[in-house]
Every structure is written in C-alpha cells, then in structure tokens.
C-alpha cells in the first residue's frame, strides 16, 4: 500500500466515517475493480453517502488515481482507513502524526459551519497514510500547506452557505446532509478527487516510497531505547544478555549484526554504558569487519561479512526481530563480582531505570578504581590488597582487561 488520502467526517448518526479516499494503482486494468467497488458501498445516511467513483489516469506513468468511499474489496486497507478515521476525529491534538504497526498517518481535523447540524458545526478531517514514517514527516510541510488550502476552500464555501441559511437555523430540527448540500456544490467530490489525485501525483513525482523487505518479513518488536538496559535484556533474553555482558566485561569482541540498524545501534549504545569508556571502542554501522584492537564492540548491517564466533569473539545476529547469540565460550560457573552485582540490579524490579543507571555507574567507578590500584601494585605484594578490596579469582580476567585498557589510553 502506498500513500492514500481520505476525507473523513463525524456523522451525527454513525460517528466517524470515511467519505472519500484516493489511492494510486499502477497498470492498465482498473475496469474490473470499478464494478466491484461500487456494488458494496451502500449506506442510507445522506451525510455518509458518496456513491460515485472517480478514476483519473496518468498515461505516462500508467498510474490510475482512484477515488471511492471505501475500498471494500481491499479489506485490510478498509479497516485501516476506518481505524485512522476514528483516531483522527477523536484525537486531542491537531494536526497529528501517528504510526501504528507498519503504517503511519498524518491527520488534520477541522470544523465546518452547517446551519442544520447540532451546534451548527460539523467535524471533518483529512488523513494521509503511508508506510514510511520518515517520508511522511519529511513531506509534512508540503502536505500541510496543501491540505490547509483544501480545508480553507471547503470551510469558506460552507460559510457562505451558512450565512444564507442562518435566518432559518433555529426553526428546523437538526438533520444530517451531504457535503455537496453543505457547500451547495454538486461536484464537490469530483473536485476533491482532483485535489487528492494531484497531491498523490506531486508527491510520488518527487519521492517514492521504497521499503526493502524480505518475503519472510514480520513486524519487528520495538527495542531498546538508548541506555535502557532492561529493554535490551528482554529483547535478547536473560541468558544471552548475561553471556553478552560477561564477554564485554572480560574484553571479548562483541559483534552485533542485524537487518534493523536502529536495533543494532541502540543495543551497542546500551552495552557501551556498562563498561568504562576507555574499555570500549565501539563502532556503529561499520563498512567492514574491524579487528578487536580497533573496535571491540561492533555493530554492522547484514551486508557486512564478519568472522564466525571463536574464543575471543561473540556474535549476536538480529534478524527479522529475532536475535540469536553465538559463542564458543564455555559457560563459567562463577561470574566476576561486578557482573554479578550488575545482573542482580537489573533483575531487581524495585530499582527504576534511573536508579539502575546510577547504581551501575557507581559499580563501574568502583571497579575502575580497583583495576587501577591493582595495576600499580607489584604482583608479589598484592594478595593482601586483593583480599582487602574483595577481589576474587573470578575477577582477575576483568581486572586484567580493564587495567590494560585504562592504562593504554592514559599513556598514549
């Protein structure tokens, strides 16, 4: 589904409903559709009624711009449009841009004078939906200006009619009526069709929507905001998370490779907060594989070839919203103290995210200092110091890696 534009209104009888929508269809064969679309759209309410169907053809590009009330033969589009219509007319902000599942929508609602309506106002909205949120927000200015022009024209026409009818407005009970009687303009829907088609054409001439997706694509869960450790944990699963953190703390190279670069990037950023800055040479969206000395935390897209996991390398593949950790490391029975405390804190739901971050920062500082201190003292005298600092056997690998990284940057 590429861009679709619709005009919706709030019917006093039926609530929000779509009046007309315009979409593009490529190819010459639109006659079949014409008949099927017309037969199913029946409504008895004169405010919701719009029985015509309009088709404009762009000979050059083979694009058919089709307008009708509801594309009932496309059930997914219809139900999406109905949903968008309800949202746009009941939304507390205006204009409003929202995205849901794989679609997104720009909505502008407006009121129109109507001497026969309850309260002498009717609510309408114009919605533009497409799949690509970035494209839609990029087009915002252009669309907004255009839609506002359309709104103004409709409002002004209706106001003129209202002023003519005003003297009689108190005598008649409220009744619903169509947009063409509201504006006293029989061809209003044809006019709207040409406006909307023009917009679709103008928009597609400059930008086209192109979303590369495999046939196996299924919606990816929203993952990890920057710095949010818990969402990363739930995304990776507790076991993979544990092993990944352990590898990172002990100086293994971590490679995150995935088809969703946002996910990869936010995972890298989150992991980075767990170790001192100097222990982490992270690269996001690298063009090619980098050796551990250059980058020990590497985020790449699926187009980049990277080594298979070995003793020093842990790989995480994030594909189609699933992630899979691959490593040859043996699962060790005892974890470094820092890792233990860290994992415990992440599990501890009484700490909120902010507190958790502070807690981790404090732990990190503590072990940075320990690493620096241990490094200064000759090995032969260190046993008493280690005991005093609470350093145990399982911490040695971490301290070795940390003190080396901390020093290397200091000297360089």
């Amino acid at each position: 589904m590429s861009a679709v534009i619709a005009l919706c209104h709030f019917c006093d009888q039926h609530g929000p409903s779509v009046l007309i929508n315009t979409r593009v269809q490529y190819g010459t064969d639109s006659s079949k559709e014409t008949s099927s679309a017309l037969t199913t759209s029946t409504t008895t309410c004169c405010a919701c009624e719009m029985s015509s169907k309009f088709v404009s053809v762009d000979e050059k590009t083979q694009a058919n711009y089709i307008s009708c009330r509801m594309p009932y033969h496309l059930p997914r589009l219809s139900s999406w449009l109905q949903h968008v219509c309800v949202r746009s007319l009941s939304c507390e902000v205006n204009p409003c841009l929202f995205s849901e599942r794989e679609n997104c929508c720009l909505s502008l609602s407006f009121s129109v004078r109507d001497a026969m309506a309850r309260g002498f106002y009717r609510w309408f909205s114009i919605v533009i939906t497409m799949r690509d949120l970035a494209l839609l927000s990029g087009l915002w200015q252009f669309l907004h200006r255009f839609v506002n022009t359309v709104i103004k024209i409709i409002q002004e026409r209706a106001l003129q009619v209202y002023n003519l009818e005003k003297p009689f407005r108190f005598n008649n009970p409220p009744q619903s009526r169509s947009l063409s009687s509201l504006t006293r303009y029989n061809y209003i829907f044809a006019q709207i069709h040409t406006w909307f088609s023009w917009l679709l054409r103008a928009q597609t001439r400059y930008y086209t929507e192109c979303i590369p997706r495999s046939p196996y694509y299924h919606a990816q869960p929203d993952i990890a905001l920057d710095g949010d450790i818990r969402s990363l944990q739930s995304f990776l699963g507790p076991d993979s998370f544990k092993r990944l953190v352990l590898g990172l703390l002990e100086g293994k190279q971590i490679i995150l490779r995935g088809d969703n670069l946002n996910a990869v990037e936010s995972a890298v950023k989150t992991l980075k907060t767990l170790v001192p800055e100097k222990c982490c040479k992270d690269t996001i969206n690298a063009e090619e594989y980098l050796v551990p000395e250059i980058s020990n935390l590497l985020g790449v897209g699926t187009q980049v070839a990277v080594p298979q996991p070995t003793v020093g390398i842990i790989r995480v593949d994030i594909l189609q919203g699933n992630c899979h950790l691959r490593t040859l490391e043996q699962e060790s029975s005892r974890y470094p103290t820092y890792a233990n405390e860290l994992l415990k804190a992440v599990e501890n739901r009484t700490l909120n995210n902010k507190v958790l971050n502070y807690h981790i920062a404090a732990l990190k500082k503590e072990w940075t200092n320990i690493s620096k201190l241990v490094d200064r003292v000759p090995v032969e005298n260190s046993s008493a110091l280690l005991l005093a600092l609470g350093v145990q056997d399982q911490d040695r690998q971490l301290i070795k890696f940390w003190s080396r990284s901390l020093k290397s940057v200091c000297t360089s």
Partner: protein
Amino acid sequence: MGLRRSGKSSIQKVVFQKMSPNETLFLESTNKIVKEDISNSSFVQFQIWDFPGQIDFLDPSFDSDMIFGGCGALVFVIDAQDDYMDALNKLHLTVTKAYKVNQNVKFEVFIHKVDGLTEDSKMETQRDIHQRANDDLTDSGCEQIHLSFHLTSIYDHSIFEAFSKVVQKLIPQLPALENLLNIMISNSAIEKAFLFDVVSKIYIATDSSPVDMQSYELCCDMIDVVIDVSGIYGLQEEPEAPAFDNQSSSLIKLNNGTILYLREVNRFLAFVCILREDNFDRQGVIDYNFLCFREAIQQVFVNSIQPNEMACNGETSAASSKTEPT
C-alpha cells in the same frame, strides 16, 4: 457514557459550567472524549469525562484499562423520551466490560429528560428500566453488579440532586460529615442542613433526615442569590476576586415562618440550613455551634491535600465528631 443525544454534554455543561438549560439545544455533538478537571474550581476533586455517543469504546482497539481503570463512577445516561431498548443493550455491555476491568466502579444510571414525562410515566419508566437492566445482568450471571437509578432533567434541580448522590459515594469522609451535620442540627433546632459545593451547587453531605426536593431547590437558589449579589456589590476593587469568600453569610426570612441561613465553611463549601423562625431567637447558640462545626470539618479534611493519607481521615473525623461541644 450513553447513546448519542442522550444529554451527556448537556448535563456536564449545566452542572459544572453553569450553562443555562436552553442553551444546550445548541450543543455540538461530541466527537472526542472531553475531560474536565473539577479539582481546581471546587471542593470535590475529580475529572469528568464526556464520551461521544457514536463511538464504540468497547471495541478492542480502545484501551479499556485507560478508560475504566481509574474510574470512580460511571454515569450512564438514558434518554427517557426516546425508545430505550438500544440504550439498555449498551448499558449492559458497558457495565459488564467496566466491571471486568475495575470492580470498584460505581454504576449510576440517569434516566434523563424526564421533564417531558408525566408523573405516572416517570415511575413506570423507572420501574421498567430498573427491571430490564437487572434482568439482563441476572441472565448473564452478573448479579453482583449493582446499578443505582436516578430520574433526572436539566430543567429542574433533579440533575444536581442526582449528581450530588454520585459524588457523595466518592467521598470517603461522607459518614463523618453526615454525623457532624446530625449533631449540628439536633443541637441547634435546625430542620434540614446541607453542605454545598458552591461552584457546582451539588451537596456533598446532608443530615440523615430525608431530602425533600423543594428544600434542596430553595437552598440552591439561595446560593445563587448570595453569589449574584456579592458578584454585583462586593469587592469592586478586585474584579478577579471570587464572589464567595470567608465573610460570606446570608439570612433569608420566608413569609411562611421559616428561615434560610447560609454560612461559609471554606472557600469551596457552604453550610445552608432551613429552620423555623421561632427557633432562631437564639442565633448566638447556632452561630457558636456553627463555629465548632466548621472547626470539625476542617479537621476532617486536614489530610485531604495528601490523598495518600486518606486512610487516617476516618479516625480524625470520628474523634472530632465526638469532641463537638454544644
């Protein structure tokens, strides 16, 4: 909630925004949930949500937790001048769904627009709606859901009365307040006393003698008089100042030998009572009792600024009502 054109927005405007009933003829149909904060203008602290009648909020695409989760009372408005079978269906669906989400919701059914009905058909309609609504609940095995019914109209005080009862159910200190009012009237030879929320004119408590519609209306009108007169003649230096302040009090003698007496309790609350003229010769005692009463009320609500301490309010109020001197 309620079907379209049942009068939801009208009720909200008339009770909380002082719209005159005739103006409601020109209300637009509501197209989104309209939330109004009552907390900053009056004593009772809550939000009122006015729902559009045309949109089905029970649809799974709406988050029922957001709608019913924080809800204290659900007012369902039924247009009594219209065929109400659809409304009853909707009532049933709404109530059962809300109950699933939140068992603490109080369900209030307003049988509305009864101004167009004769006295007999009012009773008949209430009986019929009551019967059918409860039958529906029993049939679907939801007997534990309790519905309260009120006959209302925006053209008289019934809507204020009904809303008063709804709001009272949401005030945890109600028993203490009623107790205080009982003590107050028995020691001052007062016939009937109300504690009013001035802005909305709903009464948040009254003594335990039955409420007679006429005396309630009299008291409402008295508040209007006080506010209007003070608005015109009081405090001209500061046009922004509220017409009702801690100096406010008023005394009206009716020619049938009764007296209406109003005293300010705090910025939001007024004490209004009705008593016989013969019993008013000892006004000093009544005024003294009132001061004690006001003191006690303040103690009851001393914690209401910190809602999380609501639990201890019960104790405070019990203690204060015992120490009430007469």
